[in-house]
């Protein structure tokens, strides 16, 4: 039985009293962990949650012996914003079988970044559907890999994903800190515009 803690890394400031969340969601291998690692002040950490597939008694760890239980691992990092606030970034697996972790990750989140690989656009359909279902505000970021050949324009991506006009769609390089920072700023600015009654009305239509 090994419960020796790992290296806790860079500690939070003692004055921090409020933690905020942003969720980065996307398909396998799209660059979620890379994005978290590019901008986090700590090396990305990983942990997991155990739940029953049926979603019943989901908080009951005595059921871990039950064959219907399943485990989902997720990565996270953080950014200290000021003396009192820290922002946590969660990389959430987008596959349907991990839906049960989403409620926990989304609960109280500012919003979400949907990270997209244009070679596998279909991986984004399910996350987009769930975000809309949860009424979680989001932006979409196309992670431009060093893929050979031409890549589809943002207009084509918007069309293929059936994104509403009001949803910001940007390009990024998940390996580059400034690029990730820019994506997060786009999200937070988008959230601010949703406070505008006209924007709200538009979103409701």
């Amino acid at each position, binding site marked *: *039985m*090994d*419960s020796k*803690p*790992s*290296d*806790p890394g860079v*500690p*939070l*400031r*003692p004055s*921090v*009293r*409020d*933690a*905020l*969340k942003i969720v980065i969601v996307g398909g*396998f*291998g799209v*660059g979620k*962990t890379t994005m978290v690692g590019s901008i986090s002040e700590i090396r990305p*950490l*990983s*942990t*997991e*949650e*155990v739940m029953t597939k049926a979603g019943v*008694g989901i*908080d009951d*760890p*005595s059921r*871990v*012996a039950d064959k219907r239980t399943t*485990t989902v*691992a997720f*990565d996270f990092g953080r*950014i200290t*914003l*000021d003396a009192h*606030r*820290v*922002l*946590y970034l969660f*990389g959430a697996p987008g596959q349907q079988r991990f839906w049960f972790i989403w409620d*926990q990750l989304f*609960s*109280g*989140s*500012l919003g979400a970044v949907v990270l997209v690989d244009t070679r596998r656009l279909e991986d984004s359909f399910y996350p987009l559907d769930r975000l809309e279902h949860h*009424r*979680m*505000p989001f932006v979409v970021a196309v992670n431009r890999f060093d893929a050979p050949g031409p890549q589809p324009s943002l207009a084509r991506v918007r069309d293929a994903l059936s994104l509403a006009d009001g949803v910001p769609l940007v390009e990024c390089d998940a390996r580059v800190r400034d690029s990730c920072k820019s994506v*997060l*700023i786009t999200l*937070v*600015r988008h*959230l*601010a515009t*949703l*406070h505008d009654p006209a924007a709200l009305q538009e979103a409701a239509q």
Partner: protein
Amino acid sequence: MSPRPLDLDGPDRLYTVTGGRSRADDAALDLVTLVVAENDPAPGMQSEHVAILRLCRDEPVAVVELSSHLRLPVSVVKILLLDLRDTGHITVRHPTSAAATTRLTDLETLKQVLVGLEAL
């Protein structure tokens, strides 16, 4: 990229850590609830309780970070934390979003987040 799996020794260990208990009130703790130790570990305490108190002795640590450092699932860590809270060994700082009645974060908080991000 596949996240590193935690080196769980299997269900038996998780069962032992919590004494097979579950708690209905573990929704009281968010993934990012910050935990602060209020005193040192007492003699005879369960090793996981001791480890938690050591990790958050000098500064707050989020539930999810404790889970990662202890290599225990979040739901198990929440049970251990509620034990410690009930016995006065820790205090918790809930995220303000937990008390929010609307989905949308308030503008003042968003402004502060923007200032923080732009200063990176």
